[in-house]
């Protein structure tokens, strides 16, 4: 079928391996290969084909590249959500430090995971490292109550920013997703218009389930951004392409390690280059 062009079965196989092993997913892989097939007469080498695909991917990712600035809102409120172990609590520590140091913001952290063992202690340690106050309640308190109290306190103290931590939850657990919906609703009750940012934290090691996460969380509470963590490993995080194509949710930040400074703005160009390395 492709014998007249450089795009033969061997090249297709090679490209599929690169794309699939980057967790790009079958829908996006098909989209890219359809594009390659359309342009097949214009390629003079396998490298030409790769350059073409990089360009297609870059266009998609550039359309969702949007830096995260500390939201105005007196206070600006950020809600961190995501599945278990994605890196929410750690990212909050990094973000709090960034907002305080780089933007000179007064940041309060809300210990909204009232369920998991030592979740509050973990956030408190990050609060110490970022030099930000942590608002917490008794273990087992309704997370919505914690969020409400933190936002109210922030208004009273004239804090600039509140970052609300939540317990990890799998998107198919209906009662936990309902709980999150309630947390969001209560934050708005405490301060109209809040939360100003709702950020889904996604582990770069995840496969296609990350797209399901984005779809479900977005449907439940509306996302304003994605943060991809653990990009200091060997996983490429290609699911971002599927999420971008399907939902268009902006990718704001990436986590590249476990230290407080290991947070970077999402850069579409660097990310696309890394997919093909």
């Amino acid at each position, binding site marked *: 079928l492709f014998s007249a062009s450089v795009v033969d079965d061997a090249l297709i196989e090679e490209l599929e*391996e690169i794309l699939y092993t980057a967790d790009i997913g079958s829908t996006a892989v098909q989209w890219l290969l359809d594009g390659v097939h359309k342009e097949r007469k214009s390629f003079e080498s396998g490298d030409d084909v790769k350059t073409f695909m990089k360009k297609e991917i870059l266009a998609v990712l550039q359309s969702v590249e949007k830096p995260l600035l500390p939201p105005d809102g007196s206070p600006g409120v950020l809600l961190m959500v995501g*599945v278990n172990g994605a*890196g929410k609590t750690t990212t909050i520590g990094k973000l709090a430090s960034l907002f305080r140091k780089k933007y000179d913001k007064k940041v309060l952290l809300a210990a909204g995971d009232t369920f998991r063992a030592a979740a509050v202690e*973990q956030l408190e340690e*990050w609060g110490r490292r970022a030099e930000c106050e942590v608002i917490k309640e008794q273990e087992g308190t309704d997370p919505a109550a914690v969020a409400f109290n933190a936002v109210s306190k922030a208004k009273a103290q004239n804090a600039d920013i509140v970052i609300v931590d939540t317990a990890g939850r799998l998107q*198919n657990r209906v009662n936990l997703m309902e709980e999150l919906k309630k947390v969001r609703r209560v934050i708005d009750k405490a301060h109209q218009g809040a939360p100003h940012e709702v950020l889904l934290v996604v*582990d770069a090691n995840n496969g296609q389930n990350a797209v399901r996460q984005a779809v479900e969380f977005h449907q439940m509470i509306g996302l304003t951004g994605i943060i991809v963590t653990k990009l200091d*490993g*060997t996983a490429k995080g290609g699911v971002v392409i599927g999420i971008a194509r399907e939902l268009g949710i902006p990718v704001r930040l990436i986590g590249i390690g476990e230290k407080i400074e290991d947070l970077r703005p999402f850069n579409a160009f660097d990310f696309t280059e890394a997919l093909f390395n």
Partner: protein
Amino acid sequence: QLTEKLESTFRNLRGRGKLSEDNIAEAVREIKLSLLEADVNFRVVKELVARIKERAVGAEVMKSITPGQQFVKIFHDELIKTLGEGDHSLNFSVKPPAVILMAGLQGSGKTTSAAKLALLLKNDMKRRVLLVPADVYRPAAIEQLNTLARSIDVDVYPTNPSDDPVDITANSIEYARKNGLDTVIIDTAGRMQVDEALMNEISKIREVSSPAEVLFVADAMTGQDAVTVAKEFHNRLTITGVILTKMDGDARGGAALSIHNVTGAPVKFIGVGEKIDAFELFHPDRIVSRIIG
């Protein structure tokens, strides 16, 4: 007359000949795609499909199903056999205390699973377990394991963040020996397989503990990189078993096949929730249906 009629009936019942490359081509394509969408690694998919196709071609077509459907059934059974092979129990036939080492990437569920395993061993096998918090890096990791241990009334070795994980390991085993505890479960910090310093650390931990089991704890939502990660952990530690966590989610769980393919280690347990009793023995049937889709 009647004999002829009966013969033709039997001939039809015997089906339409044999499975061939052609009459299963569509099913092969669909299975490949399904496995990729289930997060099975690209090369593992290629290898599995080639191997099973070779086994299937030439088989007699069964009555009342199409060749494609029969290939899917053969594939399904092969995967169950693959994931079912190996010893799915824990090896305790060692001089006590038996050490179980938990290893894996950040956030995969090691600490939670360590406690879940402790509870299962205590309840089902009446073992006397010591939980050991050897993660001195993650904020409140020691508190996390302490809290979990308290909740199930299992001993936990006293640790400070200033301690060295290799010393913690050696000292805790000595402690277990002196106090008649027959099982030591070592919780370690999450680490990337490309982090030289931390991989050296866990190699040393393995060296001083001579574990009866090295359990690789992997998130059921892990994608293609499962092979790269598992291969390196296996190279360094010799994985004896896998715990697949967060199976209460809707991830297809293809990582299980990828990990088994590169380590040969059986999945021994699955995590099915955040609660400490959400822990089960692994049975291949459910995950295979999930993966094939």
